[in-house]
C-alpha cells in the first residue's frame, strides 16, 4: 500500500467561540485529483489555510509523505511543496508576467536580481504548462483572466510542488478555458502532483477528480471514488438532507413587452444586441467571458454609455439614461461583483437592503430607525438570510447570504425589470436553490428578468428563453427547449449549426 501524499487526522480549529473545524480527516494520494466539497461555511477555506500555513490547527495531525507537517507560514508550506491558488487571483497587476511568476523568490545575489535566470525559470515554467505563447513582459493586468490563472499556476509550480490546492479555479473562466484547465490538471496529475480541487460545480468535479471528501459544518462526512458516486448522493452528504429539486420551476405566464433592446451598442462592447423581454419572462444570456454580456446589462442600466441603438421601456424609447433614472423607471441591476460593486461591505444589512429606496422608512428625509429595522427584518425573513440582525455589517456574512442581501435590495425597490448578472456566482448549493426559487417567484408575479450566467445547467434549468452572445453580438433568442448545452457552447464560440 502506498503512503498517502497527505494525511490529515482529526483536525480541529476554533476562532473564539466559533468552531470552524470539528474533526476533519483528509487523505490525498500521490498523483490524485481530490475534490474537496462542501457548502460555504463548511470549513473548506479554513482547512486549506491550515494546510498552506496561514493558520495553525488547535489539535490533530498532518503528515506529508508520512512525515509530520506543520508549516509556520505560507512561504514555509510552499517550500515544503504545498502551494495554494486562491479563488481571487493573487497577482500584482502592474508587474509583468515574468515578475509575477517569481515574485518573492527572485533569483538574486546580494539583492541584485539575476534577470537572465529569472527569465529562464519563468519561460520554463510556462513551457511546462504548454503555454509558452504567453508574453513574459506584458503586465498581468493586460492579459485575460484565463491567462492570469495560468500564471498563478506557474507560480505555484516553481518550487517543485507536491500538493497543489485550487480554490474555485473555474469560477471566472469560460467553458473553453475550463476545458483547457482540466487538460492542464490531468497533465500535472501524470507528473505525480497531487491536486486538491475545491469547487461548487459538482459536474466539474465529476469530470476532473478521482476521489472526493465532503465537509459539512466543520466535519468530514464522507469520502469515496468520484466515478462510483452519484451527484445526488454527494449533494445529500453536503446538505445533510435531500434537495428534491435543484431547479424548482414555478408556473408563470408571459405578458406584454417590458424591455426592448434594438441594435444596442456601447463603447467597444456590446456591438449589437437585439432582444425583447416580456413581463413574467426569464430570459437567459449565455456566452463566453468577454462576449459583452455584463456590458450589455450595464449599458442598459445607464452605467455605461450607449453609443448607438435603442432601449425601449414598455412602449417608450428611453435610450439615454442614468442609474438613478433607470431605478425610477423600475429597472434594477444585480452586479456580478458583490464585493467591489454590489454591496457596501462595511455597512449594515439594513442600509444595504434599502439603499435605493429609503422612502418607506423615512419621513421628510429623516429615517425612522424602528421602521427601517422592521422593513429589513421582513426582507431578511423572506430571503431566509442567516444573520444576527439588520444591524450586522454585510461583510461578515457568507457569500450566499451576501448575495441574498444584494437581491433583496431589488426586491425592496420593487423593480419590474431585473438585470441579474451571475446571481449565483461563488455561492453554495442551498443558497443557489433558494435564489432560483426567488427568481421563479418574481417571474410568477409578473417581473421581467434578464439572467446572465456562465453556468449552463442553471440557464437551461431556470430560463424560459435563451440568447447566446458571441463577440459583442446577440441577435437570436430561442425558447429553452430548442437549446442544449452543446448547441449553446457552439453558438458561444461562433460555430452555430
Amino acid at each position, binding site marked *: 500500500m502506498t503512503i498517502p501524499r497527505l494525511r490529515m487526522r482529526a483536525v480541529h480549529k476554533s476562532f473564539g*467561540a466559533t468552531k470552524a473545524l470539528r474533526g476533519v480527516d483528509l487523505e490525498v494520494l500521490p498523483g490524485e485529483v481530490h475534490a474537496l466539497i462542501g457548502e460555504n461555511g463548511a470549513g473548506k477555506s479554513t482547512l486549506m489555510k491550515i494546510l498552506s500555513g496561514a493558520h495553525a490547527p488547535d489539535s490533530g495531525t498532518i503528515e506529508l509523505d508520512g512525515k509530520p507537517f506543520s508549516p509556520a507560514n505560507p512561504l514555509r508550506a510552499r517550500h515544503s511543496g504545498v502551494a495554494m491558488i486562491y479563488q481571487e487571483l493573487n497577482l500584482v497587476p502592474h508587474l509583468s508576467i515574468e515578475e509575477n511568476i517569481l515574485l518573492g523568490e527572485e533569483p538574486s545575489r546580494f539583492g541584485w536580481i539575476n534577470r537572465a535566470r529569472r527569465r529562464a525559470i519563468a519561460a520554463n515554467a510556462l513551457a511546462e504548462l504548454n503555454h509558452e505563447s504567453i508574453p513574459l513582459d506584458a503586465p498581468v493586468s493586460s492579459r485575460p483572466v484565463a491567462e492570469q490563472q495560468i500564471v498563478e499556476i506557474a507560480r505555484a509550480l516553481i518550487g517543485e510542488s507536491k500538493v497543489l490546492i485550487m480554490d474555485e479555479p473555474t469560477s471566472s473562466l469560460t467553458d473553453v478555458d475550463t476545458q483547457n484547465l482540466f487538460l492542464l490538471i490531468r497533465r500535472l496529475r501524470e507528473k505525480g502532483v497531487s491536486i486538491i480541487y475545491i469547487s461548487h460545480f459538482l459536474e466539474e468535479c465529476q469530470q476532473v477528480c478521482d476521489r472526493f471528501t465532503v465537509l459539512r459544518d466543520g466535519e468530514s462526512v464522507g469520502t469515496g471514488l468520484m466515478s462510483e458516486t452519484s451527484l445526488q448522493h454527494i449533494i445529500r452528504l453536503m446538505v445533510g438532507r435531500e434537495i428534491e429539486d435543484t431547479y424548482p420551476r414555478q408556473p408563470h405566464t408571459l405578458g406584454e413587452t417590458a424591455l426592448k433592446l434594438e441594435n444596442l451598442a456601447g463603447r467597444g462592447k456590446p456591438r449589437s444586441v437585439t432582444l425583447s423581454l416580456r413581463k413574467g419572462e426569464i430570459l437567459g444570456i449565455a456566452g463566453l467571458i468577454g462576449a459583452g454580456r455584463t456590458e450589455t446589462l450595464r449599458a442598459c442600466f445607464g452605467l455605461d454609455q450607449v453609443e448607438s441603438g435603442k432601449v425601449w421601456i414598455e412602449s417608450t424609447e428611453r435610450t439615454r439614461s442614468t*442609474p438613478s433614472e433607470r431605478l425610477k423607471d423600475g429597472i434594477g441591476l444585480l452586479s456580478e461583483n458583490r464585493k467591489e460593486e454590489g454591496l*457596501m461591505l462595511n*455597512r449594515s444589512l439594513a442600509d444595504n437592503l434599502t439603499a435605493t429606496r429609503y422612502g418607506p422608512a423615512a419621513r421628510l*428625509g429623516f429615517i425612522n430607525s424602528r421602521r427601517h429595522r422592521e422593513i429589513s427584518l421582513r426582507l431578511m425573513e423572506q430571503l431566509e438570510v442567516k444573520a*444576527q440582525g439588520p*444591524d450586522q455589517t454585510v461583510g461578515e456574512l*457568507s457569500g450566499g447570504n451576501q448575495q441574498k442581501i444584494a437581491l433583496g*435590495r431589488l426586491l425592496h425597490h420593487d423593480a419590474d425589470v431585473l438585470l441579474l448578472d451571475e446571481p449565483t456566482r461563488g455561492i453554495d448549493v442551498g443558497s443557489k436553490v433558494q435564489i432560483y426559487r426567488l427568481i421563479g417567484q418574481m417571474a410568477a408575479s409578473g417581473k421581467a428578468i434578464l439572467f446572465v450566467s456562465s453556468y449552463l445547467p442553471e440557464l437551461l434549468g431556470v430560463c424560459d428563453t435563451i440568447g447566446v452572445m458571441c463577440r459583442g453580438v446577440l441577435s437570436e433568442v430561442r425558447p429553452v427547449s430548442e437549446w442544449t448545452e452543446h448547441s449553446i457552447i457552439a453558438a458561444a464560440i461562433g460555430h452555430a449549426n
Partner: protein
Amino acid sequence: MPRSVTTGTSSKIRRLLNILGPFFGLLLVVVLFGILLYVQDIRSEMEFDGATGFNAFVETARSIELKEDGTFPGLKAFISGANFKIIFIQTVIVAIGALGMTMIIVSGGIDLSVGSVVALSSVVGATLLVKEFSPATTILLTILAGGGIGLINGLTIAGLRMMPFIVTLGMMGIARGLAKWIAGNQTVNSPPSVVNAIMAMNEPMQFFPLPPGVWIAALLAVGMAVIIRQTVFGRHVFAIGSNENTARLCGIRVRSQKVLIYAIAGLFFGLAGLMQLSRLTQGDPTVAIGLELDIIAAVVIGGASLSGGTGSILGSMIGALIMAILRNGSNQMGWPNYMQEIIIGIVIILAVGLDRFRQKRNQAA
C-alpha cells in the same frame, strides 16, 4: 470565513463599547494628566522639604496625608471649572471644522484647505467690519465665503473627477494667497462689534457663563449628528464613502452629492473662520496654518477611517476635546512646545492603532 455565532446580547455590548470607546479615551487623558500633575505637586513639595531616599518615601506618604486639606496647586488648576472653560473655548474652532471634515472623510474625501479657508474668511469678516457693514451681514458673508470655497472644491472634484487631496491642496495655496491679498499682507484690525462677543471670555474664574461660540458649536454638533445618522442624506454620505460603485448602482447621484458635501463643509469652515476672527478680534491672513491637520487628527481619533464609510460626529467632537486637553495639560505641566507636538503625534498613532486592533478582534469573534 467562519460563521459568526455571537449572541444578540454580546453584539449589543460590543456596540455599546464602540460608542463609549472615545469617552474612555477622553477620561483616560484627563485622569492621566490629573495623576501627572498630582505627582508633580508632591515632588515640588518634597524638593521644598529637601527630603531624599527612604525619607523621601516617608515624606511622600506624609505629604499625601498633609495634602488632604488640599494645596495641590497644579492638579487643582487643571481640574478647575475655569480651566475647562479655557479648554472648551480652545476646542471650538477645531470642533466646528471637524463637523464639516467628518462629513467629508466619511464620504471618502479629504479637505486640506481648511486652515487657509479659516484665515481667508476671518480676513473677509474683519475687512467687512472695517468697511462698516452691519454685524449680521458680516457674519453671513464670512460664513458664505467659506461655503463658496467649499463649493468650488466640490465642483472641481466632482466635475473633473479629480482626487480631493490634489484639488484641496491647490485650494490651500489659493485661499491663503487670497487672504493675504485681501488683507494687503498684514493683519486687519476690526472695530469692536457684536462679533467679538461670540468668543469673548467673561468671568474667567468660573465655568459659566460659557461664551456663545461654545454653545453654537455644541448645538451644531447635535444637529450634524442627527443629520449624518438619521437622514437619507447622511446615509448617502456613508454609502459613497463605503463603496462609490455601489452608491452609483443604487441610483445615488454621487457627483451632485459630493458638491453638496464640500459646500456644506465649507460653510462650517467659514464659521470656524468667524470664530477665529472673534477670538483674535482681528483678521490675520497667516493664522491657522496647519489647522486642517489638527482637524483631521480629531476626526481620526474619533474613529473615522480615511478610506471612508465610517466615522461619527460624537467621536470627532471627543477627538477635538482630547487634542485641546493634551495641549492644555502639557502647558500646565510646563512642558515645552516640542514635547506637546511629540505627544500629540504619539496619541494619534495610538488611537488609530487601538481602533484597528479592536476592529480586527470584532471581525475574528
